[in-house]
């Protein structure tokens, strides 16, 4: 096993994009996919996902602003590890505007190309297989799995896709400086919104307390992003902030049930790519059912279950998470 892979494995690096996949495992599966190809067919690609499309997550932008050199270094390590053809830095439009010059000067003549996330690609434009379509100039929406990008990604070649923070961590691990911290985005009804670097095993409660953000009013929180994160009540805070490491604080006085759910549903109706029936049609009907004076809860729940059970991609399944958990953990009397 190569040096870098064993280091990553030893550090137990976990992907920071949200799904929490083991980094070493992903790298290894791309390497394995390459092994099975003939000598003249070993082309592969690396993609750094800097789309950061989930509202309430801002850490990748922050990392790129302060530690861009580390991120580029991490990408280069991956290129070397796989002897990749080239890498794409799939960059959020706003970050590109702000950091383009800096990034270009860091990349210099490395085999890294900045690909700006198309401004109209929306939420789905951050889904990893939709990114592949975007780079290839196809309609931006998730691809059917299997095959997974690790075996058949960009132009059918094995492709490694990792998040900005993951490449940052790879660079630290390579230099022996990884200290088991991560970047938490805290937002919502709290005094100190922003990105905080703290140990990666802290509970939500501790994170909120250490950043002086623990609310003194009735509240609930959402972990993992403003639209796809899971909702917990004030008694459920002894858990790590998993996923993309975002914590959103909601004051119960300011955010009644109807308003919060309506916002989520509006967001998903606008952002569904339209490929599959449970998401395209289901979310539209969910909103319909929800906006009626008398809500048909049975149908509402069936539509939610169908969304998590039968959607084409993980984003469709994720759309059910906040609503289900809000009802279960905060407004259980509603159902």
């Amino acid at each position, binding site marked *: 096993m190569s040096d870098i892979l064993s280091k990553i494995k030893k550090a137990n690096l976990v992907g920071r994009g949200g799904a929490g996949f083991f980094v070493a495992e992903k790298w290894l599966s791309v390497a394995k996919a390459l092994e099975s190809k003939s000598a003249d067919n070993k082309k592969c690609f690396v993609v750094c996902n800097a789309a950061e499309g989930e509202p309430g997550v801002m850490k990748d932008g922050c990392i790129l602003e302060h530690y861009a050199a580390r991120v580029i270094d991490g990408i280069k390590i991956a290129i070397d590890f796989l002897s990749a053809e080239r890498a794409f830095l799939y960059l959020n439009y706003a970050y590109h505007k702000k950091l383009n010059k800096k990034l270009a000067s860091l990349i210099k003549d490395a085999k890294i190309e900045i690909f700006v996330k198309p401004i109209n690609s*929306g939420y789905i434009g951050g889904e990893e297989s939709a990114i592949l379509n975007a780079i290839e100039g196809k*309609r931006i929406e998730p691809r059917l799995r299997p095959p997974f990008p690790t075996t058949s990604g960009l132009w059918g070649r094995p492709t490694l896709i990792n998040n900005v923070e993951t490449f940052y961590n790879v660079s630290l691990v390579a230099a022996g400086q990884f200290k088991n911290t991560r970047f938490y985005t805290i937002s919502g009804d709290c005094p100190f919104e922003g990105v905080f670097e703290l140990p990666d095993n802290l509970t939500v409660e501790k994170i909120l307390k250490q950043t002086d953000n623990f609310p003194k009013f009735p509240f609930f929180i959402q972990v993992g992003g403003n639209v796809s994160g899971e909702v917990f009540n004030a008694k459920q805070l002894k858990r790590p902030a998993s996923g993309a490491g975002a914590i959103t604080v909601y004051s119960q006085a300011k955010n009644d049930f109807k308003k919060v759910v309506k916002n989520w549903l509006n967001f998903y109706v606008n952002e569904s790519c339209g490929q599959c*029936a*449970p998401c*395209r*049609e289901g979310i539209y009907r969910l909103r319909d059912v929800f906006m009626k004076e008398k809500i048909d809860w049975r149908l509402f729940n069936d*539509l939610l279950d169908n969304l998590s059970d*039968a959607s084409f991609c993980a984003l469709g399944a994720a759309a059910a998470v906040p609503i289900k958990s809000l009802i279960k953990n905060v407004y259980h009397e509603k159902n």
Partner: protein
Amino acid sequence: MQVAHDNGIEIPNLCYHPDLPVKANCRVCVVEIVDRKNLATACSTPVAAGLEIKTDSERVKRSRNLNLELIFAEHIKRCPTCIWRFNCQLLEYAEKYKIEITHFSDRKSKRKVYKFANAVEIDGRQCIDCRHCLDVCNDVQKINYLKLTGKGIDQEIVPASEHRGLPFIGKKAKPADCIYCGQCALHCPAGAAQEQSHWHLVEKALRDKSPLPPFVKGGKVLVAQFAPSIRVSIGEEFGAPYGKIMSGQVVAALKKLGFNYVFDVNFGADITTIVEAEELVARVKSGIPPDKGGQRGVLPMLTSCCPAWIKYIEFYRPDLMPNLTTARSPQSHSAGLIKTYWAEKMKINQKNILTVSIVPCTAKKFEAGRAELKIRGNWPIDYCLTTRELAWLIKKHGIDFFKLKPAASDNPLGESSGAAAIYGATGGVMESALRTAEYLLATARDTVCLEENKKNKMSLKAGHGRVEFKQARGLAGVKEAVVELAGKKLRIAVVNGIGQIQPVFDKLNNYDYIEVMACPGGCIGGGGQPIPTTKEIIKKRLEALYKIDAGASVRRAHENKEALRALRWLKGKGKLRAQVLYTKYRKKS
């Protein structure tokens, strides 16, 4: 899904087609795999050893039924006049799974209906977003006319001209136009892409048929003619096995519907073969360089029976219009002769004849409306109905197709050769023309012999050469061969589906004669054929056509005596002859 099907377990689905890539977007084929968190779609899940799969658990039922209800709400119900009604998968599943089809209100009732000439339409009000039409138009046919615009609930199938570019990255599409092949309709599971229906006009004409006998002044004579490939496919609409030959039933059904006369377009196909073979020989013969005293004929010669191919040339490659044979298509030949030759024989004013052509094709509707095909100011064909439309009329009128006593088509325009039968197959036009061209070259004739007294002599001589040119057969995308006809080497190519044309365009000068059929398989896989049509089904239909050919007593077009008689009647009729037999093409933009 395939494995389940092969083992007798039917899993419902709407967006699965064996010839197209798996899209897994309808989510109707969900199944439960034990120990997996979410449901899986049967169409996209490869089988593996040890999978325990439940296809009808409560969880599966709930999800599948809900997805069906959601999809129903995308589709307005115009069932009473929808020719898809008797085959509708949506209605079938609704009944099978006891689904409330109006659980949700119609979402798309204000969507546009896009009409392409008089041939094909895409009704956004009925579309269930399966995207089959995109796959066939862009990836199979490579026409790139249909586009997906918008996203989420706003996504919509639109013609290229309406495409707003989102959410594609700023790529400008090349100008594209519909060739009316109807493959979108053939692959649509919901009747959203459909032929523009004309059955109601035909039904009205049949209903309003003058009570007077046709030969009394003012009486209308209703004449139907049916294309070579209808007879081996229409049975499927009534549950017959694939490739069942049903010529007799088709005639009987048309008579039962009220047509006075029923003719076989195979007769017209023999005329086409003769005209086309004569032109091929002329072009090849004059292919002597000018310095050797000859005039170079425009080669390669291209077939022109396929109206979608004609539209393709006129729009995309007008530079090749001189290469197209000037012969009209079989349906135009036979209809033209019905309204002139037969009309005179029967002493009926051609204005009192109404011809309805039953075709496997949507583009034929467009062809029938082409002004340059008018004869003495009249359209040879009044209406074109697809195979599906005819089947619908038969069902709608409660006719028991299988119980009909088979009938023969009417004479004299009923006789035909085996060469005509295979017109429905890719390579069939080529093969038929080669049979007659070989005769012409071997006998050193420019035209086939029409005189009565030489008739027998001709039949003797017709023994020249082979009958079967197997190089032209089969379902390969492009079939190439060099065939020797009476010492003359002819380089031929057969293009099976317009999507396969590019490599042939790339080396056009390598050929003398090229057949192109826009639909994969030829007319047998045409846009107006029964649904489903798949590669496997096409194979069965093809076998049936070659069976008809092999069993025919006459296998060469120029041995069809009735065809020769009709051509003889036309001889010396200058302008009329030209109007009945030949056509010209116009650049389209």
